[in-house]
């Protein structure tokens, strides 16, 4: 249990900069998710913390002390890998006990700790199995037990459940979160699955080509993506480019108010599908005339694609919304974010007109 500080951490492989001057502080007991597209440097970052890669520049501190010069076997971190990494020639018991035996603990204590660790991951009674006799989910749980049994200061997880099926993945990550809360262990979880990050994390660090684009709590990341990349990467988003003239954002078919601080010139408007509402067909201020191109029922809500003068727009509707494919409607923008010149976005919310078809 400890804080983790990354200071100007950089890793270059030849001409490729995998991790680019990352500054990050993870609080004691925090569950931090590193989220980003494939190849953005998530694994490299984690592997530097674990000690498998030497940073090109920068420092790693655990509990305030630099661990950068230490080898992986000397660091108080424990890692759960994406691949199955149980040692095939050892039984479950020996897999978990290996690290304890290296620490020369008494036999009875090792046995007790292994038993506790297995109970923690709900695998009591599996001590005698070989890894090949376990399912993928069970193997990853043993790997988690193997990491936890050493009581590491920092638990590192590199997409540990990504090779499991969807249902098992959800169950295991809930289990992981429960264990992490109970042990109050500092955890860093790498994933490219945003749903996983949004449900698990205390804070999310969104990475893009080696850099941290935004570091914030999940709701913050979703509601106020700091950059266009984050806006595009997290959740569904309608991104529209437009010109600002005289305090108005001139989109094709609609004009929206430009928020304070936005100058004349090019901007990008970001609208979440759930921030659009349907109005009866007709001319309304701040709404597109549109036709419903496609509707998909997704259980608890409906997703529609509207054809507007500004192009195709995604919109989420309640199940009860009266809309049919091919019908003419108006699409009202209730909330939007305006991005200009890499500055933090400006948010605009507008009251829904009374004629709204959907709530």
């Amino acid at each position, binding site marked *: 249990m400890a804080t983790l500080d990354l200071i100007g951490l950089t890793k270059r492989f030849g001409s490729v900069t995998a991790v680019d001057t990352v500054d990050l502080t993870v609080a004691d007991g925090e569950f931090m998710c590193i989220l980003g597209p494939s190849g953005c440097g998530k694994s490299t970052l984690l592997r530097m913390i674990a000690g*498998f890669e030497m940073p090109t520049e920068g420092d790693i501190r655990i509990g305030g002390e630099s661990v950068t010069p230490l080898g*992986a*076997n000397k660091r108080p*971190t424990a890692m759960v890998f994406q691949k199955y990494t149980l*040692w*095939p020639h050892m039984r479950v018991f020996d897999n978990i006990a290996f690290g304890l035996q290296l620490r020369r603990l008494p036999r009875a204590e090792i046995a007790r700790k292994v038993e506790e660790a297995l109970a923690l991951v709900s695998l009591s009674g599996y001590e005698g199995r070989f890894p090949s006799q376990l399912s993928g989910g069970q193997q990853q749980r043993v790997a988690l037990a193997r990491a936890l049994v050493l009581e590491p200061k920092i638990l590192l997880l590199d997409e540990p459940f990504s090779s499991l099926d969807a249902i098992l993945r959800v169950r295991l990550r809930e289990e992981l979160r429960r264990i992490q809360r109970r042990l109050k262990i500092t955890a860093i979880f790498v994933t490219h699955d945003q749903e996983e990050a949004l449900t698990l994390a205390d804070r999310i660090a969104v990475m893009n080509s080696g850099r941290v684009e935004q570091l914030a709590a999940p709701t913050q990341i979703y509601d106020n993506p700091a950059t266009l990349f984050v806006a595009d990467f997290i959740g569904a988003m309608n991104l529209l480019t437009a010109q600002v003239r005289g305090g108005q954002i001139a989109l094709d078919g609609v004009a929206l108010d430009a928020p304070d601080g936005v100058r004349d010139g090019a901007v990008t408007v970001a609208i979440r599908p759930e921030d659009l509402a349907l109005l009866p067909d007709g001319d309304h201020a701040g709404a597109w005339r549109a036709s419903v191109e496609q509707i998909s029922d997704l259980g608890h809500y409906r997703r529609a694609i509207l054809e507007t003068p500004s192009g195709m727009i995604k919109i989420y509707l309640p199940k009860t919304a009266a809309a049919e494919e091919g019908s003419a409607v108006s699409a009202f923008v209730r909330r939007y974010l305006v991005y200009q010149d890499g500055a933090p976005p400006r948010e605009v919310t507008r009251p829904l007109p009374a004629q709204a078809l959907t709530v």
Partner: protein
Amino acid sequence: MTTAAIPPNFWTSTRRSFAATIRRDGFGLLAMIVLILVILGPLYSVVLWAFAERWQYPSLIPTQFGLRYWGETFSRADILRALPFSIVLALVVTLLSAVICLPAAYAFARMKFRGRQLLLLSFLATNAFPRFGLYVSIAVIFFRLNLIGTVQGVILIQLVNTLLLMIWIPTAAFQAVDRSLEEAALDVGASPLRVFIQITLPMVMPALSAALLLTFVNTFYEAQGALIVGLPRVVTMPVLMYSLINSQLVVQYGAVVSFVLWMPSLLLLLVANRLLRGGYLTAGFGV
């Protein structure tokens, strides 16, 4: 883990399906008979000769069986000298080869260096060309170095022979070990040496054992190199056998010696079989 036991009805069920096969498949039967004749025929004749005291021409089996020639063979001074010498020689060569080749194989598998591929292929060269030519040119060099007719000379030339097997098989085995298994061991606090001994080595053991066994057997039977470099002073068992056969004193000497020469390979096959079926390996790798 227990090794798979033979089920009680194994033999009866095998026999039944065997009979069924014959009824269905006349061609299979024919093929089998041919195979038996071709493979077992010569062996059969060697075994018979080894135990024959007299065998006159028209008879299909020896006219008189007996162990007389075993006694005679093993009272020959040259055989009594060559047999233990050959075994020790093969052991020494195998050991030396392991000491030289295994670290090299590890390097080939784990390190990236210029010319790695070319160097690996170069070991194939000793096997890709007619060996005799290679030996003759080596013999010329050995002659200058006064290695002809010395044990060191024979060891050296036999070592050349072992390189391919002892580099290629272990290199492939080390390459097959997933790096993240080793990283996981480092991660829980094992030193690199301990990782090698407790994680890497057990996983490559079956392949290494196979390479060692094959090298031993190959070396034990190696005759060309030993013949060219060793004679006249160093005589290994297979070399001795050449002279026994060529001088055509008695067929039985050759037969008895062949019979004896099979033993190491049979023994090692049995050991290998046990080793590869060893409980933890089969269970561990889900074989």
